[in-house]
């Protein structure tokens, strides 16, 4: 069931990142206010910067009705500092939670608004790779007694990619860790309560059921034979 997956796929995280505020410089006039659920976005005048949700900024940019002001954390200097920080220490640096999603969307729709586009793209990729290798190293620390995992500095994309693996791994560890201890189980008749190795064959109920099954098999055999003789008769005819 698709709806019961416990994590967001990248399209959904991109959808969530759409509500993040970003500054744009419109080149059109709109004297009305845009009324959204999470606020009003005031009249738009050309060359006057205004803050709007990211989804709106990208729509306007696609129609070439604005210019997007790239956030500070996507500039070459800032990214170079972050990359140096990531490479020098084991801990993950603090990034914008929607770092991957926002940068991907801006690369796709507003490449011309970014200074040194190629350089920024390679820096973002390098940062992603360094963090990914750190996360992989961190996963190796999971032992058979791990009861929880600290994920404080991960961005949303990294967290959602990690979740399926981490949740099922930790669950299995929990099951193994707790397997020797008494767990409340439903009571099957004639079986001991806390025993995990039950011999089903010694249950007295099953012996009574056997003749019933045999009878059903006989009836099916008989009907099969009947079907084939009829077939043969029609063929002869």
């Amino acid at each position, binding site marked *: *069931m698709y*709806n*019961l*997956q*416990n*994590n*967001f796929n990248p399209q959904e995280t991109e*959808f*969530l990142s*759409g*509500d993040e505020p970003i500054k744009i410089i419109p080149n059109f006039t*709109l004297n*009305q206010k*845009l*009324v*959204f*659920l*999470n*606020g*009003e976005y005031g009249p738009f005048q050309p060359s006057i910067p205004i803050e709007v949700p990211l*989804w*709106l900024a990208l*729509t306007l940019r696609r129609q070439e009705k604005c210019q997007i002001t790239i956030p500070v954390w996507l500039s070459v200097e800032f990214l170079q500092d972050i990359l140096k920080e990531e490479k020098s220490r084991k801990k993950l640096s603090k990034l914008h939670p929607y770092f991957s999603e926002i940068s991907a969307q801006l690369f796709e729709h507003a490449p011309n608004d970014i200074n040194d586009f190629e350089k920024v793209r390679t820096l973002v990729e390098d940062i992603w790779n360094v963090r990914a290798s750190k996360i992989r190293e961190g996963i190796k620390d999971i032992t058979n007694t791990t*009861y*929880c*995992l*600290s*994920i*404080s500095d*991960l961005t949303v994309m990294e*967290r959602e990619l990690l*979740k399926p693996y*981490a*949740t*099922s791994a*930790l*669950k299995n560890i*929990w*099951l193994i*860790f*707790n397997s020797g*201890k008494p767990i409340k189980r*439903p*009571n*099957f008749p004639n079986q001991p309560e806390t025993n995990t190795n039950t011999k089903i064959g010694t249950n007295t109920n099953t012996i009574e*059921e056997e003749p*019933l099954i045999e009878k059903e098999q006989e009836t099916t055999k008989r009907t099969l034979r009947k079907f084939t003789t009829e077939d043969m008769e029609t063929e002869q005819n």
Partner: protein
Amino acid sequence: METTNNITVLSSFIQAWTNEKNSPEIFPYETDLITEIRNHINTQQQIIDKNLEQIKEEETNNNDSQLMFLTNIMLMEVERLNYLLRSYLRMRLDKIEKYPVYILKNQQVRESLSKEEQQFLAGYFKLFEKHMKNSFLEKLPKPLQKIDDEEEGMVAKPDVNNYVACKINEDLGEVQFLEADTFNLTLKKDDSYIINYDHIKPFIQSNKVSLI
């Protein structure tokens, strides 16, 4: 339009949506948030319809392209909200379909459902039971015909021991978790963990911990 209230309506609804997505259990239905969102959608949809009619009537007018532009933006916002609502409702329906007998047997869980969801559950369970009976249950011996027998393990329950990712919203200090062995954890604000759902369940209701 109250903007100060509405900033939190959307973010609280997204939090409720995220909680629902990550947890194996069904949370209480967010009636207030959903009514507010639906009201907003309805008012916007009325304006959109009015604008579209106006555009159809006036064919060549400079203001039209602006009206169309404005209407498109409003449509996009309404679409986004509709997607959130639909996803939220579908997740809950899927959970109801997965655990019908468990919900019917538990008064507390049943109260988490909205009225419409309870009707859905009743109808679904009737069909489910009828289908089971007609397929094979009638032909089984009498003691094995029950589909709501908890002792025999016939009732599917949500597994509260699934691991979930969560974020701590308040400083909770040192918390002791009881398990086969007890262990302590210092829960500080803005920390995130992947942890057994059963352990942080009591904190979620009071919003001290939220699932992410």
